[in-house]
């Protein structure tokens, strides 16, 4: 540890504790955080806590409504719905992490470079952004999934790619504002390279909005992936993905509505949790971002 790194660390710790205080003061954000934690714990412990094998069919018990042995009932192949939902939590978490990771990995550098260097690069990037934003998000996802073929991994990656313009737009805006600040100009006057200025002075300061957007996009990613699963373009059978489960349940809506009720509640719970947390983070980090999404 060199000496000049210490104050930076303290400052970032101070910032984190400030955001944390803002977050815990916001009641709905605390609820959101708790919901996300429940999802994370259930997802991580899925193999331990799930009462039955999520993919093993028991045909003679198909479509059985909830009982004391099977709290959420059994699906069209007699599989335990609770176990499938527990394993589905793990899939939804993966969807969130992978697609948000892909989106950030593409969108953040894109916005940083575009905003920092401006000029032709920015002009071209802005036109590309205009084109990508001309597609309603799920339509763009469907177009690319048609090219790559259906499947859970393709869906996650495509959802990530199509969210990149969103990050790029927000990061570019913040970068443009930061480029003209005194401390960035001072760093440049002292002879710091562009790479150093971007990584040390601009990047840490655009991360706030990116974290907020990432949380809100996790909700959108889970929702979109479930939508793709529902359309048969996402996870394929017998993967216990919530959207795909709902799509099967739809065929038995009249005789066994429980097959559709519980996967939908699970999606709703996760999306609501991330939305509440994202709203809370936004209020704690940057209230001016209201209405960004």
């Amino acid at each position, binding site marked *: 540890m060199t000496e000049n790194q210490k104050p930076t660390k303290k400052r970032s710790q101070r910032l984190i504790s400030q955001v944390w205080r803002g977050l815990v003061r916001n009641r709905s954000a605390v609820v959101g955080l708790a919901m996300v934690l429940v999802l994370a714990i259930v997802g991580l412990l899925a193999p331990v806590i799930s009462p039955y094998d999520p993919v093993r069919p028991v045909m003679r018990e198909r479509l059985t409504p909830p009982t004391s042995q099977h709290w959420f009932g059994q699906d069209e192949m007699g599989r335990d719905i609770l176990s499938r939902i527990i394993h589905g939590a793990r899939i939804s978490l993966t969807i969130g992490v992978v697609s948000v990771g892909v989106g950030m990995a593409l969108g953040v550098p894109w916005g940083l470079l575009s905003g920092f260097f401006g000029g032709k690069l920015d002009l071209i990037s802005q*036109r*590309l952004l*205009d*084109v990508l934003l*001309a*597609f*309603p*998000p*799920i*339509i763009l996802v*469907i*177009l*690319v999934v*048609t*090219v790559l*073929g259906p499947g859970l991994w393709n869906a996650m990656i495509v959802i990530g790619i199509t969210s990149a313009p969103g990050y790029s737009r927000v990061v570019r805006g913040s970068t443009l504002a930061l480029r003209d600040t005194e401390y960035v100009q001072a760093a440049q006057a002292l002879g710091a390279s562009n790479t150093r200025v971007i990584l040390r002075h601009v990047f840490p300061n655009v991360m706030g909005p990116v974290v907020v957007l990432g949380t809100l996009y996790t*909700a959108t990613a889970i*929702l979109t992936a*479930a*939508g793709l699963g*529902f*359309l*048969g*373009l996402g996870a394929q059978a017998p993967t216990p993905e919530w*959207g795909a489960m*709902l799509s099967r*349940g*739809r065929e038995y*809506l*009249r005789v066994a*509505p429980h097959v*559709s*009720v519980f*996967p*939908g509640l699970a*999606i*709703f719970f996760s*999306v*609501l949790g991330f*939305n*509440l947390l994202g*709203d809370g983070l936004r209020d704690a980090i940057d209230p001016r971002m*209201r*209405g960004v999404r």
Partner: protein
Amino acid sequence: MLSYIIRRVLLAIPVLIGVVTLVFLSLRLMPGDPALIMAGEAAPQEVVDRIRERLGLDQPLIVQYGIYMGSLLRGDLGESARTRRPVSREIGTRLPATMELAAASMAIAVVFGLLAGLISATRQYSLVDYGTMVGALIGISIPVFWFGLMAMWIFSVQLGWFPVGGRGTFRHLVLPAITLGAMSTGMIARMTRSSMLEVLRQDYVRTAHAKGLGERAVHMKHALRNALIPVMTLAGLQFGTLLGGSVLTETVFTWPGVGRLMVNSIMNRDYPVVQGAVLLIAVIFTAVNLLVDIAYSVVDPRIRYD
């Protein structure tokens, strides 16, 4: 004013060219030979070759691009690999259904979203405010296809108030329109509330209060008109959400629109129809946002002088 409109329209042209290029590339990047898919797996080689020649697939990519652009300008979107009918006709027969659904949902979203946002903002921190905002959050977080299924189960299967699916009468439209409009209603309600709260803090609102105007006059005449500007932009963007969401809603309610055609065409590997539908949706979305931008400049003259 006119020059602003002309400039905006001209700016939309490169975007549309980009959209078409992207859709074209996706068609050509598709794994598998389009001619083979069209002819069918068992077709003899000469049939496949003939189709390839007819579609211009034996030409270099740039020539294919030129052919594609040329036929688009004539309104020719190619032909369906499955029915052999022109894609434009396939889509054209289903477009009215999708537009009907999107328009009804938009009407629901704007009317209820604005009302909810207004009531919430004028009674900030009241029980009504909390209730409305919880409702809006639910609207944003609920999966549209699940909401549709549950509405169908309760109101069609259990109570028998509405038909289970299909299109025709007003009663067919109610559940799909509410389902599709739920998310946008929530979005518009939240935006109206925060925009209204911001405007209510402005000096001119205080002035209006100070000169003794009634609460209603201040809210309606001074605050709402200014608060509506960001809401308008959002409503334009929400139209895209509605067009996208129609894919799911139409699937749930077997609504015979472009969204359902698109999903069925993906299943049948009928790619020309998929691409045509995507293209059409993107063009409609761009046009709607163009109109919103122009309307925006009429309402707020500051925009034009940027």
